[in-house]
């Protein structure tokens, strides 16, 4: 068991651990897992992932004031009989060894040159030793994680940046999986889109207790209704789907990937647990065995976990999908795609073309500024990009792309055409902002039926998808 009386009773401010040495990783594990056979899996996962990234050095700060843990401590751990320290240990990981300048006051080591891999906050809570983590994604997965952002921290006056997806493990008292999942989504929105930063008690308080059952502290978990209300309370009103009620040609993969492509973390409720999907990859593309593997943050297991087949997942059946969204994204993805599909067929037909059976649709929500900024980079001809750029558009738009599956499976540019929809538009008025086919680009004026067209002198080649062109 971790001796909490010795947690912060040290004059040493920090230590450097040479992870190349035998036993070094086990040392860290025992420091925070208590040297027992019941070391939490999540601690082993986090340390193992850092090691898997090639971490050769760890720097431990012994008196780190972590805002999230301080918040938890203030609300809960300061009220218990057992005394819990109010400071955490922050463990940083680097890919290079720190051999020079460790003892030299005149030319001290510069940690910014050692290849920063991220950090993990260790709580002085034996039952829940892992707090907030921001680690670089595993190399095999990083191109497939669509919800990544950059966080900059400071260590001894040096700014260190890491790109990844923020992770939080539940403490199982104040916050449970649902709270942790919502925290992950909220923190990603904060880092990527600049929305307000929410600490754990803000997430807890946002969940209405009145519609729960019994006492809410220690938390028994959240009903989906509470989780949905909590997301709204944090300024991220969610789309919620009961996955047993999918209609028509909708599938779980299509539903989820629409939001992941847009960079929105997707919370799944299944098997009595909640976790966050942050990316996906297509496996065996173009074959009868083609399937989607999702990548998730599971607060009970660890960050960046691969779900090989969601239908056989340990948390099956997947029951609910909850996607916290920006407030001005009124139109959900399934509606946008239903409307966009039909307009795409109409636009193609007007140009004497048809949507072939090998074509499919891919929908992404982006800000219109981002959409316009990346048109030429994606491969849209300049004259057509000019028409689109000068068109008035809502802040958020859905881009419903017509995708050639054969080209996609060859990893070539595969978007044949697209339809752009106003994400704030009326539910029963099926207007669009613009459409693009290989032959022409049209812009629809928002408040009238008039349209402007730019025709191609020759068919436009397939272009890159809007989601990949903006780094997702």
């Amino acid at each position, binding site marked *: 068991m971790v001796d909490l009386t010795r947690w912060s009773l040290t004059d040493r401010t920090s230590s450097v651990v040479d992870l190349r040495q035998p036993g070094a990783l086990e040392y860290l594990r025992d420091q925070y897992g208590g040297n027992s056979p019941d070391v939490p899996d999540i601690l082993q996962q986090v340390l193992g992932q850092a090691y898997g990234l090639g971490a050769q050095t760890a720097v431990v700060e012994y008196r780190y004031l972590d805002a999230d843990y301080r918040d938890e401590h203030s609300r809960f751990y300061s009220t218990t009989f057992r005394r819990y320290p109010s400071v955490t240990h922050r463990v940083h990981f680097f890919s290079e060894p720190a051999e020079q300048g460790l003892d030299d006051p005149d030319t001290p080591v510069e940690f910014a040159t050692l290849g920063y891999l991220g950090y993990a906050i260790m709580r002085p809570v034996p039952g829940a030793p892992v707090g907030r983590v921001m680690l670089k994604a595993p190399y095999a997965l990083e191109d497939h994680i669509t919800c990544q952002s950059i966080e900059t921290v400071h260590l001894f006056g040096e700014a260190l940046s890491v790109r990844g997806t923020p992770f939080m493990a539940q403490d199982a008292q104040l916050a449970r999986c649902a709270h942790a999942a919502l925290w992950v989504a909220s923190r990603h929105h904060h880092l990527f889109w600049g929305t307000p930063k929410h600490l754990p008690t803000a997430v807890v308080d946002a969940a209405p207790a009145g519609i729960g059952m019994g006492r809410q502290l220690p938390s028994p978990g959240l009903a989906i*209704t509470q989780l949905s209300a909590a997301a709204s309370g944090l300024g991220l009103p969610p789309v919620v789907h009961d996955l047993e009620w999918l209609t028509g040609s909708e599938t779980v993969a299509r539903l989820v990937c629409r939001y992941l492509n847009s960079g929105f973390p997707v919370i799944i409720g299944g098997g009595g647990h*909640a976790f966050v999907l942050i990316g996906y990859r297509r496996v065996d593309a173009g074959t009868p065995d083609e399937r989607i593997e999702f990548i998730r943050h599971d607060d009970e297991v660890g960050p960046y976990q691969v779900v090989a087949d969601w239908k056989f997942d340990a948390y099956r059946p997947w029951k*609910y999908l909850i996607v916290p969204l920006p407030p001005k994204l009124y139109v959900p993805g399934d509606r946008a795609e239903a409307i966009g599909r039909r*307009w795409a067929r109409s636009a193609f037909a007007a140009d004497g073309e048809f949507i072939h059976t090998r074509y499919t649709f891919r929908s992404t929500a982006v800000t219109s500024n981002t959409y316009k900024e990346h048109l030429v980079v994606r491969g849209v001809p300049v004259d057509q990009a000019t028409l689109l750029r000068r068109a008035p558009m809502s802040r958020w738009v859905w881009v419903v792309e017509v995708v050639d599956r054969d080209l996609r499976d060859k990893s070539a540019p595969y978007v044949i055409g697209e339809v752009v929809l106003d994400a704030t538009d009326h539910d029963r008025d099926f207007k669009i902002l613009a459409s693009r086919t290989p032959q022409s680009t*049209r812009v629809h004026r928002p408040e009238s039926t008039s349209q*402007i067209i730019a025709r191609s002198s020759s068919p436009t080649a397939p272009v890159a998808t809007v989601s990949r062109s903006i780094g997702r």
Partner: protein
Amino acid sequence: MLSEPADAPNFVRELYSGGVEVTEPLALDADAVRELTVELRALEDARAAAVVSGRTYLVR
């Protein structure tokens, strides 16, 4: 008071939109509108079902 485009002095020019006005605007035909209405109603029904069932499903 802002002047109408036709009255604007000659150093004010309307920015070229990038295209030309369409004489026959693109529209969804009646069949497409009908199918779309049915599909969107089904999506609304699914969303309503989630509101009801989500009250009793606990995640922890």
